[in-house]
């Protein structure tokens, strides 16, 4: 069974210390950016991660790619714990795990040509025999839909969508098994977004890649993900097959999130009441007791303040962290499937 797992995160925690008040001499506070997250990604599939700004998505991405070290917890890549590796072992293993970023521009060195940018990892990691870097680079460019003749051009000569293709080619150069994509299409126009999503899907089919795909756009994630994890204030509140989570959300936060998405169908305007959350997301420095969502939840009771709901399968087999999950309000207008 573990053989089917491309990536596994076990109880990952990341606290960022923040400045304490020197005058009062209080102990240092910390931002609980990721607070006990466990996830699995099956080989050849896509795990989508959604949630609002600041809920810890990017921190989680940086943890699983080991760009930062966790406060505690582990990350297994093909069964190997990468959080304890170092030196050349780490380098070799991490090669299998590549990241694509939101802003393709700031992640590309403006003084390097596209050819250099894509071939650099090839040379450093000795992926192809000496002298074949250029051929391989042009092959990669072609694969992501760039004109290989543009090998000598610089990032500023490319559009946003093309730059994102460059970022993808660079990630593919090391022949990874897992790609973690943090908001890879958020900065792009809809028409260009669709091109990149199609490209990512094709690459997955051809190369058997596994993806962790982070986005705040729920419909983009619906399109690409097999499994979806919904995060709120550093925790996963619901996880499951995309079809289930979207058609029958079990956690109140998931319901609210889905209900807030504007749908491109004016005929449905004003149908049913939408769930409207009140108030703001609480501070991750001092999250609410019990369930972190309770301050904005319309179902909350005393129990929610006292006891933290654990992320576990409910009677219907839905994995959700809520004391009162699963009653889909009819007004949500989501078709049962």
């Amino acid at each position, binding site marked *: 069974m573990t053989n089917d797992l491309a990536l596994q995160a076990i109880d990952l925690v990341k606290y960022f210390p923040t400045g304490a008040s020197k005058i009062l001499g209080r102990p240092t506070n910390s931002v609980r950016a990721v607070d006990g997250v466990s996830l699995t990604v099956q080989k050849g599939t896509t795990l989508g991660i959604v949630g609002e700004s600041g809920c810890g998505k990017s921190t989680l991405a940086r943890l699983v790619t080991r760009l930062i070290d966790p406060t505690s917890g582990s990350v297994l890549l093909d069964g190997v714990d990468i959080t304890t590796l170092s030196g050349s072992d780490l380098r070799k293993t991490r090669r299998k795990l590549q990241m694509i970023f939101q802003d393709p521009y700031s992640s590309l060195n403006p003084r390097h040509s596209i050819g250099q940018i894509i071939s650099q990892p090839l040379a450093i990691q000795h992926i192809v025999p000496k002298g074949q870097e250029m051929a391989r680079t042009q092959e990669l460019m072609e694969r992501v839909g760039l004109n290989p003749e543009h090998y000598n051009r610089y990032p500023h000569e490319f559009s946003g969508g093309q730059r994102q293709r460059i970022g993808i080619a660079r990630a593919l150069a090391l022949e990874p098994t897992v790609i973690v994509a943090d908001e890879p299409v958020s900065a792009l126009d*809809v028409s260009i*977004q669709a091109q990149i999503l199609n490209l990512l899907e094709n690459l997955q089919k051809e190369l058997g890649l596994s993806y962790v795909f982070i986005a705040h756009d*729920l419909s983009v994630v*619906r399109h690409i993900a097999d499994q979806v994890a919904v995060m709120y204030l550093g925790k996963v509140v619901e996880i499951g097959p995309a079809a289930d989570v979207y058609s029958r959300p079990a956690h109140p936060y998931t319901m609210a999130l889905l209900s807030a998405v504007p749908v*491109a169908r*004016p005929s449905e*305007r004003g149908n049913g009441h939408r769930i*409207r959350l009140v108030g703001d997301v609480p501070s991750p420095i001092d999250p609410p007791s019990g369930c972190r969502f309770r301050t904005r939840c319309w179902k909350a009771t005393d129990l929610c303040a006292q006891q933290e709901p654990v992320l576990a399968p409910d009677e219907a087999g839905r994995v959700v962290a809520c004391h009162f999950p699963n009653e889909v309000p009819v007004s949500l207008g989501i078709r049962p499937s």
Partner: protein
Amino acid sequence: MSNTSVLSVRNLSVAFATADGDVIAVDKLSFDLALGETLGIVGESGSGKSVTASSIMRLNNSSSATTTGEILLEGTNILTASEDEVRSIRGKDVAMIFQDPLSALNPYYTVGHQIAEAYEVHHHGVDKSVVRSLVLDMMTKVGIPNPEKRIDEYPHQFSGGMRQRIVIAIALINQPKVLIADEPTTALDVTVQAQILDLMKSLQLEFNMAIILITHDLGVIAEVADNVLVMYAGRIVETSSVSALFAEPVHPYAFGLLGAVTSLEASDRGQLDTIAGSPPSLISLPSGCSFHPRCEFVEFGNGKCVSVVPELRSIGTLGSSTACHLSDDVIVSLGRKAARA
């Protein structure tokens, strides 16, 4: 819908002189806006949406910009009005909110001060306590809890969504006739976006304002717009009522946009439709229809797509117009197909 237009834009063109040549950011744009109407403007990045918006506020009078045409606000041409006239219009009859609520606010003044200032610029000598109560009233209207306390706080003490509410309060304190909202919710989370859109709708009902809503999100358009302008490379390529846009779009670029949108349902339809290529350079626009290098239907355009700039013409039975050379029948049937896909 009432057809007394509060704002008429006629043949608006804006060009910027740059080292590489003239950028034609907006090219002969015309539209009308009625009180109480929400006009959505959609289009790809760089298609001229923001430049159009700032022209209406006469904010892009940089030395490199050449603006021609007419922008008539209840008959007054904003483009030729004196500086004094423009100052008395800006922020009073026409107000604007932007994408980034933080940069719109001054970090050194309390939010109450900033809302009050927006009022006092246009209402001299009003008693401070009267202004304060107007400000409190406005803060309540835009949904700031506990306004008596929050009026004396600074922008950094507010969340992104609350800051955007403050920006809206500043824009609405003078009860403008026209509110221009340029990507007002793009920087916000969806749950907050939903709150802000609700708020804009309810305040529109209360004040009977006209709203120009610029966004790249067709979902937002579907939720709040009455009519829609679709822009491509500085030109209007389609105008439609919101229901017509989604039932029967009338321009190939709009077909592509609808097909490229991801939805909350069905992922089993497989690949998204895409529009091949990327938007053109505004310095050397493609000849004929600017969309032709990316258009799938060029071969049906009787050879005109590459050579003749298509004019906007009315089409179909839903009150739409298109700037496309395809015949009416072809467009309407392709449009219905695109909407169904």
